């Protein structure tokens, strides 16, 4: 066979294999249950609206969840259990140095953001308290 055609065919085969692998892997990721108890969806619009309240106000621009997001402000994964819902509410209304005040938001929107953070808080511990934290599951 012409070596040029052979080479083109091998390039096509290799690319196709990776693309098929990607599809398979994406499917596995989407369907594999987590090892820690995730948060079971509740009926109605409440959870979706919590997610939208978090996003619409651009919280992720400065704050991260599980390390994903902005680094200007602190990670908020466990802010509810390590501080309190009231702490979050107060910070949002007061706007401490370096953070804009969200006084203009309606109470329900602030409740939704606090509710969203409460749900994230239940998902896992982050950042960990020590370097011996169990990365692959199990106990410290």
């Amino acid at each position, binding site marked *: 066979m012409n070596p040029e055609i052979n080479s083109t065919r091998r390039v096509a085969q290799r690319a196709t294999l990776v*693309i098929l692998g*990607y599809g398979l892997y994406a499917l596995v*990721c989407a369907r594999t249950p987590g090892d820690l108890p995730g948060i079971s969806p509740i009926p109605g619009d409440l959870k979706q609206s919590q997610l939208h309240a978090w996003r619409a106000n651009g919280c*992720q*621009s400065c704050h991260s969840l599980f*390390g994903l997001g902005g680094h200007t402000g602190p990670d908020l994964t466990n802010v509810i259990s390590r501080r309190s819902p009231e702490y979050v509410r107060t910070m949002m209304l007061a706007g401490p140095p370096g953070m804009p005040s969200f006084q203009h938001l309606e109470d329900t929107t602030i409740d939704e953001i606090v509710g969203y953070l409460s749900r994230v808080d239940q998902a896992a511990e*982050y*950042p960990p308290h*020590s370097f011996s934290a169990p*990365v692959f599951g199990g106990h410290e």
Partner: protein
Amino acid sequence: MNSSSVAEQDSRTIADLLGRVGILITLMLTLLTGIIISVLTTRPSLTTTLPAMQTIRPLHTLGTIALLVFGINTLRDIAMKRANEQGMLPHWFTTTLILVFFISAFLAIAAGCGSGLEYVGWPVRLTWLPVGLFALIAIDTVRSMRSLCHLSPEGTWLLVMGLVLTPLGMIERVVSAEDIEITRSLTIEWHALDTIFAGINTALYGLAILLVSEPEKGRPLRARGLYLLAAFALLSTFGHHHYMSGQSSTLKWVAFLASMLGMISFVRHVWAFRRRHRRGDRVSTSLFASASTWTAFAVGSGVLLAVPQVNLLLHGTHAVVGHAMGAVIGADVMIIFAGLFSPRSTLSNDRLLKRGVVVLNVSLSLMVLNLFVAGAAKGILRMSDDPHSYLSVVRTILSPLPIIGFSMSVSLLILACRSIRIRRGSY
């Protein structure tokens, strides 16, 4: 007429100029917003006088992604010309599509209509525009695969892979945007984001190979074992980004294994460094050499960050930003500029340009070092009883960041402006 002179002649088109101006504009947006972010990070009290982070950060991300997309599109056009391939997709059409996407996304974010999603800060529906664009470019590239393989089969494979994986990652991100189960949503989000950036990097690496390869002498396909290793890493390293979430332990172990195997890739990069990029004009040579070095850094720091105990210390800190800066500016942006300069040999004595490359490398090194030190400080201090106690320390460590960012911006703007001057034929 040889293939490189054909490339030189054909690059003198309006579409090519538009692509280079697009690179300059998106670069300016990225640099301006980047400097504002660094100022706000170190001096948060300026929040009231500077534009809000909710607008600035998505614009910064948009600028970066649009810059990389413009770069891929322009470099692919040069590679096609080098392969004496016309293609069915006119360069002006793809460039205009990117411009339309960029302007629409910019206006939507500036008007406060962004999605609030990480890295995909524009309205979610707009994502279908770059997805369609990548699909068209991928189809056109596959049609020209034979000619491109003539330059380098390895480069062609990487380019096609990158052009397909990038839109697939975008689709995954858009489809999972409304998922409300937190652990699964995080898993998919990291998988999608990793795929988007892996796709962009892969396409640019492929283009770099195609632009330095001589016909029939280009790099052949890598051996089967290395191919399987690359495919495995490409698909599964994402899991190390969230070791601490409730994702499946199996995914974590697979990610850990794939990431550690990245050490082989790191060693290969370092090993190959001495043999590479010794021909061509000096500016593009030094840019390609810089890109090689920064690629080795990106792979090496990626492997390091995937070590579980190091991950606990550094993940979610500025160290990850440093890793990303090395990968995007050090590897991707340097490849883009090296590619823009590569058809021209007369730039070898441009002093300003050569100094720009040196300042860029020095600034980037200082920035990455600064970010890693700040990240380590944050990683240690956040484990204390008061998890927010690190803020003032980290801000102090990061205080040189705006100045470093400014010097890096100047050097990048010199490269971008020079790349347009070439187009005008002023030398």
